[in-house]
């Protein structure tokens, strides 16, 4: 699993600059979406991951500007910590909600944060503020191409590691219990397991991923504003997660990359239609691939590997 991560990282050396930054954003968005997928396995869809995305971004930006921490790896960790801490506060509070209420509450909390950011003038209000270019291990990158590659490498490696961690998580005892919570949380409780605790832990993991991703988005744009927390930002992350389905980690990154490609092409050739394309795309996926694009290759794996039938059944769960 580690090999593809290294390969993709090195591949960045031969990519043209515009693809590099596109891939960086794709990896970073994919990380948030991966968190949504982790959480969605408990049956709860968060429409407010922008909250943790923004928390990570603002946390990193403030620390960078005040204490001069510009190291990309450190910034990633700070972002993850900011997201995770906030997740730890909010997770236990909202774990008891489900379905639409869970979605609405996460959305509400992210909008509270958005509203607070907009009116906080020391943080630049709705205009936000700028941060300096990140360094890595005390090396500063003056050549923009090198800087882009550095960011690409850090985000791909981080996202790749997160993907590996998620794969292990999905196959674990905890991962199975998470699916059980989605299927029937009452029975989970009757088995002596706390469904709320399972939801909370998954929620915190999702928040950590979103926080780290916020750090990458900040490093890539070198600017932050409340839009990070706005609900349409969160909506895009959910979009990627739905596109991917919750069965396969790699599908999340494929979906994220697909989204970025569609975005840049439609921006280039068909201005003001990219949301339209997205909407149609989303409808088509929900209609024809209700389990996401991941189901395209997961189903095949199940057929080909008899022994692992059980694992893929976890992932697939055939419809009746």
């Amino acid at each position, binding site marked *: 699993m580690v090999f593809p991560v290294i390969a993709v990282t090195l591949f960045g050396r031969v990519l043209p600059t515009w693809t590099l930054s596109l891939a960086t954003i794709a990896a970073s968005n994919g990380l948030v979406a991966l968190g949504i997928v982790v959480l969605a396995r408990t049956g709860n869809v968060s429409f407010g991951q922008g909250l943790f995305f923004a928390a990570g971004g603002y946390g990193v930006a403030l620390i960078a500007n005040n204490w001069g921490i510009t190291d990309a790896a450190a910034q990633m960790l700070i972002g993850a910590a900011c997201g995770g801490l906030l997740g730890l506060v909010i997770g236990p509070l909202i774990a008891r909600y489900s379905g639409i209420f869970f979605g609405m509450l996460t959305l509400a909390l992210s909008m509270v944060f958005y509203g607070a950011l907009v009116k906080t003038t020391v943080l630049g209000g709705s205009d936000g503020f700028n941060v300096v270019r990140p360094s890595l291990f005390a090396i500063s990158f003056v050549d923009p191409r090198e800087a882009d590659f550095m960011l690409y490498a850090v985000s791909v490696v981080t996202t790749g590691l997160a993907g590996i961690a998620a794969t292990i998580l999905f196959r*674990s005892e905890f991962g199975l*219990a998470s699916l*059980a919570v989605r299927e029937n949380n009452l029975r989970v409780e*009757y*088995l*002596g397991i706390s469904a709320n605790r399972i939801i909370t832990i998954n929620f915190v993991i999702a928040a950590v991923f979103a926080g780290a991703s916020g750090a990458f988005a900040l490093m890539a744009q070198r600017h932050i504003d409340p839009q990070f927390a706005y609900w349409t930002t969160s909506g895009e992350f959910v979009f990627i997660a739905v596109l991917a389905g919750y069965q396969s980690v790699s599908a999340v990154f494929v979906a994220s990359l697909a989204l970025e490609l569609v975005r840049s092409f439609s921006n280039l050739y068909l201005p003001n239609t990219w949301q339209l394309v997205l909407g149609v795309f989303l409808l088509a996926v929900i209609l024809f691939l209700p389990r996401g694009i991941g189901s395209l290759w997961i189903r095949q794996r199940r057929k080909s590997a008899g022994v692992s039938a059980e694992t893929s059944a976890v992932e697939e*769960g055939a419809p009746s």
Partner: protein
Amino acid sequence: MNPVLAVRGLEKRFGAVVAADALSIDIAAGQRVSLIGANGAGKTTFVNMVTGYLKPDRGSIALDGVHIGRRSPRSVARLGISRSFQVPQLFIELTAAENLAVAVSGMHATTLSLHSPAEAPGRRDKAIELLQRFGLANLADRPISELAGGVRKLIDIAMALVRRPKLLLLDEPTSGVSAEEKFATMDRVIHAVAPDAATIVFVEHDMEIVGRYADRVIAFYSGRILADGSPQDVLRDPEVRRYVTGGAR
């Protein structure tokens, strides 16, 4: 000897409906008790209250002398009461073995491992062993959604056994099973359950089953206990014959 379960003056209303009216029941270790009563008599409500799903309006429930009337289903389960459901409560998209694996991991740890694989040998073996007891090992890797209602009921009961409960409550274990198969099913259940649970309360509508498998019968009628005693006595009781077993059945 102290009873395993001691219920005193239990009351529960849903609006104007009285689902439990001053229920007092002691259940001794090793007893096999059958709850009978027409639909709506309050049998499931009783099971729901004993397992913490519904909070009684009044009264107390004690398990081995520990008061459990205000506890959650999770905490009651940990203390040693398990149940099956009238409508099986399973993880529909997971396989039979996975359903039981979840139950097994819930028993062993309070914190579930984030990395140890779900189908680790120990857990899977235990899951298969349980399925085997019910004669279902061949269905281990089939998702529940592909399984018939009768099989689901058995898996639902198997899930309840994992904790080796002090008290096992079965809500209509043979409902949905055809008349000819009822005895076979109940036989299977009683044998499969025996190694893990000695004290059993089961809700049952078929009086032949009740007569054969229960050593005590409690008849419910609109939230009240109509009769409580040996199967012979209760099934012969004129009030029970009039309100519970008589006529249609």
